[in-house]
């Protein structure tokens, strides 16, 4: 069982909150949910919408066809009615004139559910003595969520529970009126439920789940990993993560700094890392573009630091609130000169948590910057995931001696003698290129760092022999990482290992691909690349060579595919691409895969769905 619910409305009028409360209600009732948010780079007024997919099985994608459309103004109706599935339900304001859609409604056999928003609100206002009706307009949200529940026969107490969660703080005082008005809507919905085939009764489950957005999951990954230092500069869609961390700052003694720009954001984190902290920064394209120089410094000085880049539509300011995966090659090559770095790409919200946590281990183990490359679709979507299993993860700080003073003791007790620490000790072992590390302030020692080429102590030197070795020491870490990282951290593989076709993709396309593949039983193998740089090219080659290769990416140039060609010499046969700022839907992928199987596809399949 799976259905799609969409709510739309002017930005800033509660659409997101409604969608979240509907998603939660379904989750409370035992369903898996996945919610996708579409909004403008605008504060109030532009049309935004939210699609919630509800299923009795885990779900990580959305469909173009809507089963329940929720509207409370004309624009949403106009924009989305043609996407409603045959026999779907449409909740609308009874005062809207729907006559111009009547032919369409009939032809699609839509179940039209008129809701007397104004009347319900007026009645509620009177009952609770709330006054000004204009200000109460926002109640349409609750009413429509409850009405949806009614149609679906979703037990109303789950919706009430989600309202309890959402109406906190100053909003608490309007909780009861919202529930009251909501139940009016619920009753209306219920009147139509008999005509609607989809039902959402409570279902049993054994497992505890949480419902998280990608930015929340990423933030939790940081906390789990012991990161206590985050810098940021506001930018969509990255900011949500930092603000979420700020909301938890007191609980975890987490230092979140709003820097003056992204240059400073990264450098502050590098400074904190030198001081011994697990430190991170999060941004999106335009901010990430300002970090190239800082990344090079961290690479040169072998400083562990974690950078989250939430990709959005580019180039430049681009489509600030829309989805794209086009920063990959930039991330791999950002910064002049050559230095080692790692690029990790979680494919969904759950992975966003674990891979982010793991990023700190890799950063410290190999002493380099790690970029976790996410995107707007992961960042702003919500999804139910199994309650995180803390035992899955262990903090590993590599060759770091963290026994440092923390201000507890008197400096007088400590040594006055100073020794020079070989922070960049050249390897004696041809398999291990990582040097021991201590933080600034480590008693009895000193070292130097410099962006210049340096000797083992970190002092500037232009000596050509030292240069040949030091540069090689740093670069060799990339080979070491490929060697030492378990395959399952590098790729995830799904589908039929004997299939003729292989799909290769990265990041948030994962959920859609897995779901769409199910339509074509056993026809595809799917390789999700999680560690994109350094790329384990023989591992990839093993999976792709000899098969018909399909690249699925949300960009114009098929960046991962071209990287794989560079490393393996294998060319892709098909490119399934989309760059209109909207994520690939399940329908998109089913269409593309179907075409390919039917041998009717062009080499480049450019997808354009979405509003």
């Amino acid at each position, binding site marked *: 069982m799976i259905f799609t619910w969409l709510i739309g409305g002017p930005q800033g009028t509660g659409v997101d909150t409604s969608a979240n409360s509907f998603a939660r209600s379904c989750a409370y009732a035992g369903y898996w949910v996945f919610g996708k948010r579409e909004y403008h780079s605008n504060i109030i007024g532009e049309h935004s919408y939210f699609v919630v997919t509800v299923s009795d099985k885990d779900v990580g994608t959305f469909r173009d066809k809507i089963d329940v459309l929720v509207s409370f103004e004309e624009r949403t109706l106009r924009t989305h009615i043609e996407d409603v599935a045959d026999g779907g339900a449409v909740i609308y304001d009874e005062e809207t004139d729907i006559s111009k859609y009547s032919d369409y409604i009939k032809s699609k056999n839509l179940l039209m559910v008129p809701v007397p928003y104004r009347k319900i609100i007026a009645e509620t206002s009177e009952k609770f003595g709330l006054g000004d009706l204009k200000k109460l307009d926002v109640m349409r949200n609750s009413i429509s969520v409850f009405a949806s529940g009614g149609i679906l026969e979703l037990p109303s107490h789950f919706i009430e529970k989600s309202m309890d969660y959402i109406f906190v703080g100053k909003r608490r005082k309007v909780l009861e009126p919202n529930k009251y008005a909501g139940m009016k809507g619920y009753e209306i919905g219920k009147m139509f439920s008999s005509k609607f085939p989809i039902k959402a009764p409570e279902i049993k489950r054994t497992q505890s789940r949480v419902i998280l957005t990608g930015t929340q999951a990423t933030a939790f990954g940081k906390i789990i990993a012991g990161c206590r230092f985050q810098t940021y500069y506001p930018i969509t869609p990255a900011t949500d993560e930092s603000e979420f961390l700020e909301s938890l700052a007191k609980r975890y003694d987490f230092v979140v700094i709003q820097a003056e720009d992204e240059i400073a954001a990264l450098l*502050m984190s590098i400074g904190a890392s030198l001081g011994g902290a697990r430190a991170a920064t999060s941004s999106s394209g335009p901010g990430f573009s300002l970090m190239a120089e800082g990344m090079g410094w961290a690479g040169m000085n072998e400083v562990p630091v974690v950078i989250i880049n939430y990709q959005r539509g580019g180039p430049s300011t681009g489509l600030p609130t829309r989805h794209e995966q086009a920063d990959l090659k930039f991330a791999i090559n950002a910064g002049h000169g050559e230095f080692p770095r790692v690029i990790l790409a979680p494919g969904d919200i759950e992975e966003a948590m674990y891979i982010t946590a793991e990023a700190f281990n890799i950063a410290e183990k190999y002493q380099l910057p790690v970029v976790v490359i996410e995107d707007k679709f992961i960042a702003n979507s919500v999804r139910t995931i199994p309650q995180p299993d803390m035992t899955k993860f262990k903090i590993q700080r590599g060759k770091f001696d963290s026994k440092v003073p923390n201000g507890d003791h008197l400096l007088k007790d400590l*040594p006055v003698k100073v020794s020079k620490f070989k922070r960049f000790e050249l390897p004696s072992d041809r398999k291990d290129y990582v040097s021991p590390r201590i933080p600034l302030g480590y008693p009895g020692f000193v070292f130097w760092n410099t962006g210049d080429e340096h000797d083992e102590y970190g002092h500037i030197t232009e000596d050509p022999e030292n240069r040949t070795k030091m540069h090689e020491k740093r670069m060799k870490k990339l080979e070491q990482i490929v060697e030492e990282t378990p395959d399952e951290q590098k790729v995830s593989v799904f589908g039929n290992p004997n299939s003729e076709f292989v799909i290769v993709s990265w990041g948030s396309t994962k959920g859609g691909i897995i779901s769409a593949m199910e339509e074509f039983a056993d026809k595809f193998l799917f390789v999700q690349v999680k560690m994109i740089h350094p790329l384990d090219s023989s591992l990839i080659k093993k999976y792709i060579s000899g098969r018909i290769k399909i690249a699925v990416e949300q960009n114009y140039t098929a960046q991962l595919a071209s990287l794989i060609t560079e490393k393996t010499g294998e060319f892709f046969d098909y490119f399934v691409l989309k760059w209109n700022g909207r994520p690939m839907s399940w329908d998109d992928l089913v269409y593309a895969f179907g075409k390919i199987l039917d041998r009717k596809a062009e080499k480049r399949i450019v997808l354009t769905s979405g509003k």
Partner: protein
Amino acid sequence: MQKELYKSDYESDWCPGCGDFGILQSIMQALAELEIPPWNTAIFSGIGCSGKTPHYINSYGIHTLHGRPLPFAIGAKMANPSLNVIAISGDGDAYGIGIGHFVNAGRRNPDITYIVHNNGVYGLTKGQASPTLKRKAQPKSLKLPNINDSINPIAISISAGYTFVARSFAYNVKHLKDLIKQAVLHRGIAFIDVLQPCPTFNTVDTKESYLQRIKNLPEYERDNISEAMKYALDTENLWIGVFYQVQRESYDQRYEEILQSYPKNSFPAKIDGNITDISESLRDFLC
């Protein structure tokens, strides 16, 4: 402590007669007199002749990027507030490419000492005009007279909220050393603009011309911002000494106030193999 303890064995490559030598001596002497163990100081520098300073000092020395020592330094200080953190820039570094960080640091008041080697030129790139060079001046390397007006770092730092603002002269080691000691002891951001002759390139602002214009600031209440500004805006004379000093909570103190037990609990180098239990926070998301 002995000044020698602070001398690194890395050889300096500044030009003979460079004012940077005086600044280096002053820093080492100040640290010795304050009895701060070498390993408890971290010195962050930008890029330039001035930027090489930390390599010559036997402390943790972080030679960062051009214009950027402050953000690095702030990060380190916040991760470990018990470190004695010093930042060093050239005038191009601090007042040109780095002035964004310079101004923004005023709003944070991190407990850092910031020393700027003000030599009127971009030394290491061979003598182009720095932001402190007077308009129409044409030191040796300039192909055309300087087209820009000079910046007023004292007035800007006071306007930007710095809580300790001073100026000294590179060749007056005693004066500068005393200022550095005060700056290190000051809780908050302490800024010292040091007039630093660059005999190789700055053929306009020479040691001699500085000496003619330098004057000691008179007595006044150092927290009097209008008095401080009066001397800051007087560009005829080169006033040296402390222009302005005021107490305001430092950046780490502000976080200490807001968080539960920063820095003690969050001092992050302490984390070990155990992951943080997030179940309390997850409760909100259970469904």
